[in-house]
C-alpha cells in the first residue's frame, strides 16, 4: 500500500511536469517547431547543462553535489503533511489546480493564438500578433508550473541535489508528453502515468537495481524510437509532429 501511494505521488509530480512542458512544447511548438527546431533544441539542451553546472558549482547556495538534506514537509495551520497519504492528497490537489490552469490557458483565446503560432507563426505576425510575447508568456507560465512539481518533489523526498534534474530527466518528461500526445493535457497525464508505471514491472522481474535503472533508460529510448516510427502523434495527441 505504502508503495502504491509512493507511486501515485510520483505520478502526480511528473504529471504536473508533463503538463507544464506540454504547454511550452505542445502548444507553441517551442523546441519542436517546424521552422528552426534544431536550434531551439540545441539551445535548450545547452541551457539545461549550464544550469546544471551552476547548481553543481554554486556551493554557497546549493551545497553542490552534497545536496540539501532535511527539507520539511509542508505545513498549513499547524497541520503537517508528514505521512504519505496526506502528501498524496496535497499532490493531487496541486495536480488538479495545474490541470485546470493548463486547460484554461489552452481553451482560451490566448490558447488558440498559441496553437496558431505553432501552425504558422508568420501568418499570425502578419495579423498583428506579437508572437514573441505569446511564446514568452507561455514559457514563463510553464516554468512556474514546473517549479510547483519541483517544490513538491523536494519536500516529498526531503532532499534535493543537482543530479536529480539532469538532461535525461528532461528527456524523460519529453518522452511522457510525446507518448501521451503533444498539445493534449489529457495526453500529458496519461503519458506520465504510463512512463512511471511501465518500468515498475521491471522491478518485479528481479534485476539488480543498477541494471533495472539502466533497463528503464533503454525502455524509454526504444519507446521514443518506436513512437516516432509508428505513432508520432502519441496516444491521444492531436498534433502530428
Amino acid at each position, binding site marked *: 500500500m505504502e508503495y502504491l501511494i509512493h507511486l501515485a505521488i510520483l505520478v502526480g509530480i511528473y504529471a504536473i511536469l508533463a503538463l507544464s512542458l506540454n504547454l511550452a512544447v505542445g502548444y507553441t511548438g517551442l523546441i*519542436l*517547431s*517546424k521552422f528552426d*527546431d*534544431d*536550434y531551439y*533544441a*540545441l*539551445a535548450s*539542451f*545547452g*541551457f539545461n*547543462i*549550464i544550469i*546544471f*553546472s*551552476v547548481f*553543481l*558549482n554554486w556551493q554557497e547556495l546549493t551545497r553542490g553535489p552534497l545536496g540539501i538534506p532535511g527539507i520539511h514537509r509542508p505545513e498549513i495551520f499547524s497541520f503537517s503533511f508528514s505521512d504519505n497519504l496526506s502528501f498524496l492528497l496535497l499532490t493531487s490537489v496541486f495536480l488538479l489546480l495545474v490541470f485546470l490552469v493548463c486547460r484554461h490557458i489552452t481553451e482560451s483565446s490566448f490558447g488558440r493564438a498559441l496553437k496558431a503560432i505553432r501552425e504558422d507563426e508568420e501568418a499570425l505576425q502578419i495579423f498583428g500578433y506579437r508572437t514573441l510575447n505569446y511564446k514568452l508568456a507561455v514559457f514563463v507560465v510553464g516554468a512556474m508550473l514546473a517549479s510547483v512539481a519541483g517544490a513538491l518533489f523536494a519536500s516529498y523526498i526531503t532532499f534535493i541535489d543537482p543530479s536529480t534534474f539532469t538532461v*535525461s530527466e528532461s*528527456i524523460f518528461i*519529453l518522452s511522457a508528453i*510525446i507518448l501521451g500526445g503533444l498539445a493534449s493535457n489529457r495526453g500529458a497525464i496519461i503519458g506520465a502515468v504510463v512512463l512511471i508505471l511501465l518500468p515498475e514491472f521491471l522491478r518485479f522481474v528481479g534485476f539488480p537495481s*543498477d*541494471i533495472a535503472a*539502466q*533497463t*528503464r*533508460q*533503454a525502455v*524509454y*529510448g*526504444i*519507446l*521514443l*524510437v518506436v*513512437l*516516432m*516510427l509508428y505513432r*508520432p502523434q502519441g496516444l491521444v495527441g492531436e498534433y502530428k*509532429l
Partner: protein
Amino acid sequence: MDIVPQLITNSLIAGSIYAILTLGFNLTYGTAKFIDMGYGVLAVIGGYSVFYFSKLLGLPLWLGALLGITISGLVSYLAYTFIYKPLRARKSSGAVLLIASLGVLTALQAVIAILFTSQFQTLSSLLSGNRIFELFGGTFTAVQLSIFGIGVVLFTVLAFLLKYTLFGKAVTAISDDEEVSKIVGINTDRIVGCIFFISGGGIGNIYGGIAGAFLLAFAENFGIWKIAGEWKGAITFGLLIMFLLWRPQGIFKR
C-alpha cells in the same frame, strides 16, 4: 613553469578530438539534414570496443581500435537503415528525427551501461610505453600526439575523398539537393547509408567544423584557467548559445 604553452597544447589535443568528432557529425548533418543526437554515443561505442577487445580479451591495441571503428560504423549503419531511413522516406520533420535519435542515444547509452557498468574504466595499463615529449614548454604524451596526427590524417583523407572521388561528389550533391541528386540517378539511400557508416567510424568533414572544434577547445581550456574546471560544460554550452543567438550560420558561412 609558464602555463600558457601547456594550455595551448591541451587545447590543440582536445581540439583534435572534437575535430574528429565534428568531421563525422558534419557529414551526417550535411547529407541527412537532421541533428543526430545519438552521434556522441557512437564515439563511446568505439571507446568501449577498444576497452573490451584490447583490455578484456587482450588483443593488440591497433586491432581493438580497428574493431571499434567497424562496430561503431555498423551500429550507425543499422540505426540509419532501420530507423532514420524509413522516417526520411516518410518526409518526417526534423523534430521527429531528432527525437528518434534521442531515443537511440538513451537506449544505446543504457545498453553500454548494462554491459560495462556505469563506473568508469581505465585503459592506462595498455599504454605502458606512453612517452612524454616537451615542446616550447608544453608537455604531451605519445598518445596525445597520435590523436593530433590522426586528426590531421583523417581530415586530409576526407577532404581528398570529398573533392576528388565520385563518392565525394555524390555526397556534395546530396547535401546540396537530395531530390535532384536522386533524379540524376545517384543512389542517395546507399550514399547516405555509407555516410552513416563512415561517420560512425570517425572519419569526417570540413573546415568550419574543424575551426569550431579548436575554438571550443581553446575556449574551454583557457576558460578553466581563468574561471574553474567545474565550469567547463557551462563554458561549452554558453558558447553554443551565444553562437546560436548571434551567429547561427557558424564561423564560416556555407
